[in-house]
């Protein structure tokens, strides 16, 4: 073993190893191999629970996508809640204990070992070439992006369930009954005309109150089941741990790190875990993706299909790192100016305009140029008005981001007359007060 601070400079051979360590970890994480070594996985999970001072889980579920894993976790929570009302709280604590505590402890031990034996300069060199690059390409690009998408989809699904339940309960039971009661009472007393008005009013008020009550009760409960709520620090696996594991792995190969627990964590993740949701009595493991497509800047990107594919068919769509609705990629023929103007996210809208082509977008939208000028940074701006049949005109300010060169069409109130005033309005500032010193 090396003595304290003995590693002051990397040999040419060690320096040459950094890119290959980086590529090896990236390839293992997102190279398309979704095989799981079951024995190593079981051993890894049992070690993690034991390391966190917990009884081993009763079940280990192996799922093929983060979506399936999250649905399995939520279903398991429902099952578990029946037998133990506090399990939700306990599960979250368990999840934190295994993912945060074990990771934090193992990581801290390895860091101490490296800190005492490796100079700052070498640490920075390895961090730049291995930790940051692996972390950015795997964790930030794929882990965060896909995780955010799954989280949003789960939230939508939970909301749909809540809405559906409320709708069924309110419409089928409460509203019909209350309305009928009020209508009958009032109609008998003050006649049909007044009865209709009062009945509607009272019915609406009662309906809203009961809707709120049911939303609070049902909604809160169902939301509790959505345990993920996007907290990547609570997961273990390639999707979240790649950066720091690769960084410390470099020092293990240089002979600096020799901690058994670090080796066990690497073996656990290395068995093929993309992420692992830890519950009190079950661990739900997700396999790695079976295909990941990226652009030249390593952003998730594919124009003719999903950028990330999972073995069960679950897919994620991205264009140059922007999360896109599936239909814009699978059915680009449905893209038109109306769909662009209806899209609420400016980055998604920008990609849609690029897909459609600015020329075609302008032809279809057929805007009237109300005003044009140049901003403080020399970028052209235009205020456009698009006439809509049967609706107020759509007024957009057409601006170019000085950093990205992306062209954005931002909707502003239809009465706007000057491009500068429109941009000032987007920041809730009077035109005379909008004068940025720097724009980036």
């Amino acid at each position, binding site marked *: 073993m090396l003595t304290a601070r003995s590693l002051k400079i990397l040999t040419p051979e060690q320096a040459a190893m950094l890119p290959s360590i980086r590529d090896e970890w990236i390839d293992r994480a997102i190279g398309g191999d979704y095989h799981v070594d079951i024995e190593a996985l079981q051993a890894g999970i049992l070690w993690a629970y034991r390391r966190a001072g917990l009884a081993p889980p009763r079940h280990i579920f192996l799922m093929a996508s983060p979506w399936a894993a999250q649905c399995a976790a939520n279903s398991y929570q429902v099952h578990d809640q029946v037998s133990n009302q506090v399990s939700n709280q306990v599960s979250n604590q368990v999840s934190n204990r295994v993912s945060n505590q074990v990771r934090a402890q193992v990581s801290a031990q390895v860091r101490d070992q490296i800190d005492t034996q490796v100079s700052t300069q070498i640490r920075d060199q390895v961090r730049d070439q291995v930790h940051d690059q692996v972390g950015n390409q795997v964790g*930030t690009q794929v882990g965060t992006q896909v995780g955010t998408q799954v989280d949003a989809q789960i939230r939508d699904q939970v909301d749909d369930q809540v809405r559906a339940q409320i709708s069924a309960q309110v419409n089928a039971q409460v509203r019909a009954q209350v309305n009928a009661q009020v209508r009958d009472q009032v109609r008998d007393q003050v006649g049909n005309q007044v009865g209709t008005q009062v009945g509607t009013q009272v019915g609406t008020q009662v309906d809203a109150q009961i809707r709120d009550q049911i939303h609070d009760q049902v909604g809160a409960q169902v939301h509790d089941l959505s345990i993920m709520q996007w907290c990547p620090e609570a997961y273990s696996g390639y999707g979240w741990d790649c950066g720091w594991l690769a960084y410390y792995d470099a020092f293990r190969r240089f002979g600096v790190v020799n901690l058994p627990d670090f080796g066990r964590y690497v073996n656990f993740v290395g068995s093929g875990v993309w992420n692992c949701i830890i519950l009190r009595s079950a661990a739900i493991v997700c396999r790695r993706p079976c295909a990941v497509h990226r652009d030249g800047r390593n952003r998730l990107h594919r124009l003719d299909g999903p950028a990330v594919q999972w073995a069960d068919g679950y897919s994620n769509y991205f264009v140059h790192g922007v999360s896109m609705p599936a239909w814009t990629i699978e059915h680009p023929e449905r893209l038109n100016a109306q769909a662009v103007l209806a899209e609420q996210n400016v980055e998604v809208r920008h990609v849609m305009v690029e897909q459609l082509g600015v020329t075609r977008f302008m032809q279809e939208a057929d805007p009237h140029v109300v005003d044009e000028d140049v901003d403080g940074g020399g970028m052209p701006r235009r205020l456009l008005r698009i006439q809509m049949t049967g609706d107020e005109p759509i007024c957009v300010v057409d601006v170019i981001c000085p950093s990205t060169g992306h062209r954005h069409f931002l909707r502003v109130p239809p009465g706007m007359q000057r491009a500068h005033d429109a941009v000032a309005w987007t920041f809730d500032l009077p035109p005379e007060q909008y004068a940025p010193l720097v724009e980036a």
Partner: protein
Amino acid sequence: MDQYRHGDLIIMRVDAIPAGAIPQQHRILAEGEATGHAHRVDTGVLYEREGRLYLDVAAAKASLTHEEHGTIILPTGRYEVRRQREYIAPELTRQVMD
């Protein structure tokens, strides 16, 4: 009033952080929903009051960074952070989302 424009944010110098503003445990000024990217500073304390963010930079400077935008250097001072908004319908606006 010094103003710094960073993508869909504007950072404006203010005299003081409003009373009652609550310090935040992070330095992320805004996060992109579709990209996962974030506007963040490397030093300073963020505060929140009534949905608005404020930034107190005690150091000589803070670097405001984002994966897709150039870095802006903010000198010592107190700032209000505003996110760009869009028109939806009369009396209705929404924050610009990226």
